[in-house]
């Protein structure tokens, strides 16, 4: 690896991201470091990253309406979610693995640790995966999740949301986030959403209803575009396989 004057990635904008300690979200109080983070330009360890193949995905991974169905389709609003994964320089990000998890239409997770009283749906697991194509496009089909309560200064409610985990080409681009649904009045009331200070950053997490992408007489559609950290185009490492 040769030393170049321009690092492969600029540091994250940590004013745009949520702060680590946001006391109104109780769980951050004991899980946030008190020391400042140690900053260093990326090395080969962060510029490289695991590469996943389209052939690793199961045939129904991107179809959460069918991938856990045992006796028919799950209950709830059928939706198609699609968008593009770009970097900060607006370049499409191909072959990004996107992992998806969510509650069912009643707000219940299929997880050994979730005991919310809303019932499980025997035909829905809330698990999914997809990958972006050469133009950075992705799509998956699911059921719109329901809101649910969680303990946070008493009873707090999560807006309907879907969790996403993304792998770009570099481990430095790793991102886990959630998206919300346009028009949900719970968004502005949510302590987890409000860990983000800038309203424009919150708006970046709101999927927009996309009538043009509906499947007629079948499913509504939402659009959610995602931006990963952008690798500086003038830098490249040597010796990274």
């Amino acid at each position, binding site marked *: 690896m040769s030393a170049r004057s321009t690092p492969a990635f600029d540091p994250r904008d940590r004013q745009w991201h949520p702060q680590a300690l946001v006391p109104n979200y109780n769980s951050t109080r004991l899980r946030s470091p008190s020391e400042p983070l140690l900053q260093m330009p990326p090395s080969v360890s962060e510029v490289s990253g695991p590469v996943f193949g389209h052939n690793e995905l199961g045939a129904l991974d991107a179809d959460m309406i069918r991938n856990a169905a045992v006796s028919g389709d799950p209950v709830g609003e059928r939706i198609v979610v699609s968008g593009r994964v770009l970097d900060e320089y607006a370049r499409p990000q191909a072959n990004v693995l996107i992992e998806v998890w969510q509650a069912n239409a009643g707000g219940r997770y299929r997880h050994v640790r979730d005991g919310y009283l809303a019932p499980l749906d025997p035909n829905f697991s*809330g698990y999914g995966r997809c990958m972006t194509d050469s133009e950075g496009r992705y799509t998956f089909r699911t059921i719109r999740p329901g809101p649910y309560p969680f303990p946070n200064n008493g009873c707090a409610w999560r807006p309907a949301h879907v969790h996403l985990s993304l792998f770009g080409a570099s481990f430095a681009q790793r991102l886990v986030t959630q998206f919300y649904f346009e028009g949900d009045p719970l968004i502005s009331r949510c302590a987890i959403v409000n860990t983000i200070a800038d309203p424009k950053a919150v708006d970046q997490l709101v999927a927009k209803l996309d009538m043009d992408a509906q499947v007629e007489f079948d499913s509504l559609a939402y659009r959610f575009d995602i931006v990963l950290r952008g690798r500086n185009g003038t830098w490249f490492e040597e010796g990274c396989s």
Partner: protein
Amino acid sequence: MVLKKTLKETPSQTAGPYVHIGTLPSVAGIDVPTHRTPGNTGLEGGAPIIIRGTIRDGGGDLVKDAMVEIWQANAGGSYGPGRTGWARSHTDFETGEFRFETMKPGKAGGQAPHITFMIFARGINLHLHTRIYFSDEADANAADPLLNLIADAGRRNTLIAQPDPGSNNTWRFDVVLQGEGETVFLDI
């Protein structure tokens, strides 16, 4: 060519307590036949090792709902191919312990042998990033660019795994999220 940033990175949000559904479905209780077995990097060649550890919060309690990932070079110091060198585990719901099976990494890019380590969990709004170094690499550690940025020896030692006295080829890496003995976390 001079490139200009025109977009902001999508903000992070916590992975939450049910992160296992999407990342380690079998741990959540979901059977997905095409999803890989967690915990092994798939590396071959070199010295096989096991890495075990726990994550404690600022109150000293074990964090038992975290998902953790590692990414490392092979014994020759090269990354890849594919996803080889990457693995995922979780802190056990009962014991709080994570566990990885891998090969000891070699030196990569002029750095001491190390493993990138990331933590995703409820209450962590943007995943925490740190590194695992090895206590039997004293010379390489003394010359490592990242370790040398940490002036305080006690803090530097939070990144250095120690041999587990109870078992062969096993290294312990215990993380403290906050307060006394707090692990050094990175912004890279």
